[in-house]
């Protein structure tokens, strides 16, 4: 009886402790390095502000060289092919990447990464789009697409995207213009990667199934044990 009481108290203590930090039980599996959030979710813990990035891309004989621009924390990387820029007589192209101080949440979309403003001293050559890679956090649902906007207020347009290295998303055909970029998914649909059963998340259903199995299997086992102990007493 004392042992059962101790276990019951431990269950209550755990439930309270786990309720205070989302998502609750979490064993530390995740991306190789923590994501630096502009607007950290409660479970993010100690958060470092996201970094900006700068690149000077040389132009040789009127053609910009292949190069990449990235933030210092590697959360956004933009790759450029040779001749990706309309150089217009420039000898160097500068690219600036700045994380926004705010976190836009446009209607119908759920952006799960920071929004970044990418600018350059020359326009992109439409025939040589730039490739874009965004890293995201394991504390948020996986994004489905990278979105682009010319203004943080929108509209945000989806760039066809695909998963890259773990916890990264990459554009399939790149982008031919600069602007604001973030990754997310349509809020009207469930986040990609989440398993939906009966219209909801699998986790509540999994827990409900576990409870039902324990109760259904536990009752006969308890009855059998009681009968066995009754037989012994007889």
């Amino acid at each position: 009886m004392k042992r059962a009481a101790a276990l019951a108290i431990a269950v209550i203590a755990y439930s309270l402790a786990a309720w205070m930090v989302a998502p609750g039980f979490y064993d530390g599996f995740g991306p190789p390095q923590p994501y630096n959030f502009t607007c950290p979710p409660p479970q993010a813990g100690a958060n470092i502000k996201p970094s900006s990035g700068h690149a000077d891309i040389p132009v040789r004989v009127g053609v910009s060289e292949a190069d990449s621009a990235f933030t210092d924390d590697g959360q956004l990387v933009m790759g450029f092919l040779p001749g990706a820029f309309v150089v217009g007589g420039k000898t160097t192209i500068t690219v600036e990447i700045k994380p926004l101080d705010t976190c836009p949440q446009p209607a119908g979309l759920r952006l799960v990464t920071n929004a970044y403003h990418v600018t350059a001293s020359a326009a992109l050559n439409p025939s040589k789009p730039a490739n874009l890679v965004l890293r995201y956090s394991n504390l948020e649902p996986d994004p489905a697409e990278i979105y682009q906007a010319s203004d943080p207020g929108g509209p945000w347009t989806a760039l066809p995207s695909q998963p890259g290295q773990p916890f990264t998303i990459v554009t399939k055909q790149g982008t031919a213009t600069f602007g604001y970029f973030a990754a997310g998914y349509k809020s009207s649909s469930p986040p990609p990667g989440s398993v939906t059963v009966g219209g909801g998340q699998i986790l509540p259903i999994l827990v409900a199934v576990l409870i039902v199995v324990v109760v259904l299997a536990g009752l006969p086992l308890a009855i059998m044990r009681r009968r066995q102990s009754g037989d012994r007493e007889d």
Partner: protein
Amino acid sequence: MTAAVGARSALRAGLIALLVLLVEWARALMAQQPGLTVAALALGGAALTAFALGWPPERLGLGTSKFGLRLLGGLALGAVLLLPAAVRPGVAPLLPAGLAWAAIAVSIGEELAFRGALYAALDDLGGAPLAIIGSTSLWTAAHVLSHPTQFLGAVAAAGLLLALWRWACKDLVAPVIGHAIADLAL
């Protein structure tokens, strides 16, 4: 004679505690290196499992008597561990499929190391109270490098629950199953 046995038990418990802690911290640091997450989990799980070598299964709580109840206990523990995340509004992050087998390896390894070998060694040294408190404290310390600070309360509470189960039911099968279910879900 008794003092010598006590010193040997203390030395064994201390050594296991130190090595388990080092393995967990090394695993956490290795997992932070790009591309090494799965390898860190798998190697960490294997290294932690090695702590169970040399112990009779019964001393680790791995007996086969009342196996149905042990399995059922594991499902119940899994439900308890996941319940706060399941009833919380909003989306809980699910474990990426590629990490599933590595997560199972770590769950088994951690249970064998903390609630198995370390618990048994501390039990020999100072009885159940030392085994429960000691294994829970070490378990919490082992997660310092892999978890944000505010998660450590929940980690400690989960460790205490699993250690109390180990004590109350003399069973490690249920903690292994419950831990694996919880790790697979989150």
